């Protein structure tokens, strides 16, 4: 028994070493990005670990790189924040409302709506790209924030996830609240939402991340220099910044850091929520 115990310990140590090595390989691209964002411009993409550092790239982000408008990078960052926050907020709000109707309200036609949501969810989205673009144009929303918010205001996945979660909440809670005279809005706001904090953390992070890193849609509906999101601006600057990629790395850090920070803040709730969603 002593021998096998020692064996177990050795096996565990090997696993920790392996896990750490694997992790280093997986986060190396991020490390490369951060180091290059601080590297002297003469060393960007030239060294595995740059030896000279400066804040040149970040200064450039804040002040330079005029393309049609002054300070395009900070402007694009603000656009990304506006679009992503508004759109994620609406996806959450509508997700919760519709899921409540589909899981806890009894009304004629509910099954039809439910089936339609599932049909919509599994339909290949690529077919909608062109007509949705045309609808935005027809509505006169081309090149506005609305073009990036409204078509991304409802998430089928959020509806689906909340519907499944709400179904697991016993009806007794709702019936008791109804006897006390609570309205459906109040039940939703006072009971359902507080009870689904962990799943909300998961849905919120996934939706925000997806919205924040959207490229195709934001690229086709926004054209003016002052309307671009950070992700789109970064994508368009690949060519022009070809020989001075330093600022692009700084912009990448600016694009990646907020999501990672949020992820770490909500980490614990996220873990609980993932456990539910993986069941």
């Amino acid at each position, binding site marked *: 028994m002593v021998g096998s115990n020692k064996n177990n310990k050795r096996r565990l140590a090997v696993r920790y070493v392996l896990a750490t090595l694997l*992790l280093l390989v997986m986060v190396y*691209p991020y490390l490369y990005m951060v180091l290059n964002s601080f590297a002297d411009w003469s060393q960007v993409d030239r060294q595995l670990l740059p030896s000279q550092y400066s804040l040149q790239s970040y200064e450039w982000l804040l002040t330079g790189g005029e393309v049609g408008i002054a300070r395009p990078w900070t402007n694009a960052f603000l656009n990304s924040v506006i679009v992503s926050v508004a759109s994620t907020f609406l996806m959450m709000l509508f997700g919760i409302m*519709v899921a409540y109707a589909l899981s806890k309200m009894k009304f004629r036609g509910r099954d039809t709506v439910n089936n339609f949501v599932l049909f*919509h969810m599994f339909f290949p*989205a690529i077919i909608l790209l062109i*007509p949705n673009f*045309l609808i935005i144009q027809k509505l006169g929303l081309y090149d506005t924030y609305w073009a990036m918010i409204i078509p991304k205001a*409802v998430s089928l996945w959020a509806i689906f996830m909340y519907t499944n979660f709400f179904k697991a909440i016993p009806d007794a809670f709702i019936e008791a609240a109804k006897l006390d005279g609570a309205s459906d809005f109040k039940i939703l706001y006072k009971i359902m939402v507080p009870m689904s904090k962990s799943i909300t953390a998961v849905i919120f992070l996934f939706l925000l991340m997806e919205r924040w890193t959207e490229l195709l849609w934001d690229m086709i509906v926004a054209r003016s220099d002052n309307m671009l999101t950070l992700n789109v601006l970064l994508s368009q600057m690949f060519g022009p910044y070809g020989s001075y990629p330093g600022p692009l790395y700084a912009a990448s850090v600016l694009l990646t850091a907020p999501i990672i920070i949020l*992820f770490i803040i909500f980490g614990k709730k996220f873990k609980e929520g993932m456990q539910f969603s993986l069941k």
Partner: protein
Amino acid sequence: MIDKRNDKLGWIFSSPYLIFGLVFFLGPLVWSLYLSFTDWDLIAPEYDYVGLDNFLKAMATPGVQAAFWVTYKFMIIFVPLVTAMSLAVAVVIQGLPRFKSVYLIGFFLPYLSSGVVASLIVQGFLSYNSPVNEFLRGTFGIQIDWLGSPLSALFIVGLILAWKFTGYYALILTSGLESIDQEIYEAAAIDGVSDRQRFWKITLPLLYPALYTTLILSFGVTLGIFTEVYQLTGGGPNFATNTWQMEIFNQAFTNLQAGYASAIAILASLVTFISIFAIRKVLEMWGKRNGWV
């Protein structure tokens, strides 16, 4: 319990979706079908009905034919790669007594990246004067055109995607592995089961539901590749990485062939739909034949 008032409230609560589904799903779907039979160029006020011409033309072009095959090439590269990587992570991580969540969070971080950022990093890492290429030139005297040759371009895009999704799938597989009762392994050890039998007869069957999920998800990923390809290769070299999304984007928004691009989008949807259906069936049969489901 169903009365008129409940009916009304139910519809009010569902209305955000109903309006959205009408404006951005059902309407566009019909419009798309209609456009695919026209020769509209996004600008001209008038256009003609051209019957099935768009579909016939599309199927004969190298771009569309490439898109059809590229999807499956990405499947062959990406799916085994990401499955092996996430399984490796899951096997190493599962049941670690300490720091397990630190590792899981660390492995999950790539999933939060933007495809544009990942492409930028890869492009910089593989640029002409990068340390990797300097090393290869200096030591072996070789210069590899990473994104300029078809096979390596496919592999690089596949690798970027595998990097992104490994941590997410590892999370799913880890919870799958941890749900396996340790007593089963102990009982097997007493019965003198070999390591190989242990994997094939215990681990794999019990991991199958989690594995099924990650496999379906990863096949799904290959059906929607755009950002990395747009950023790094533009679908090239010579259509080697030209995905459906790339082809549709080019035809609709670079060449402004709205009608023609709609026809391609319909073909792409059909192929996607059939592929996913077939993959699901095959995976389910695989599970059933071995008695895992």
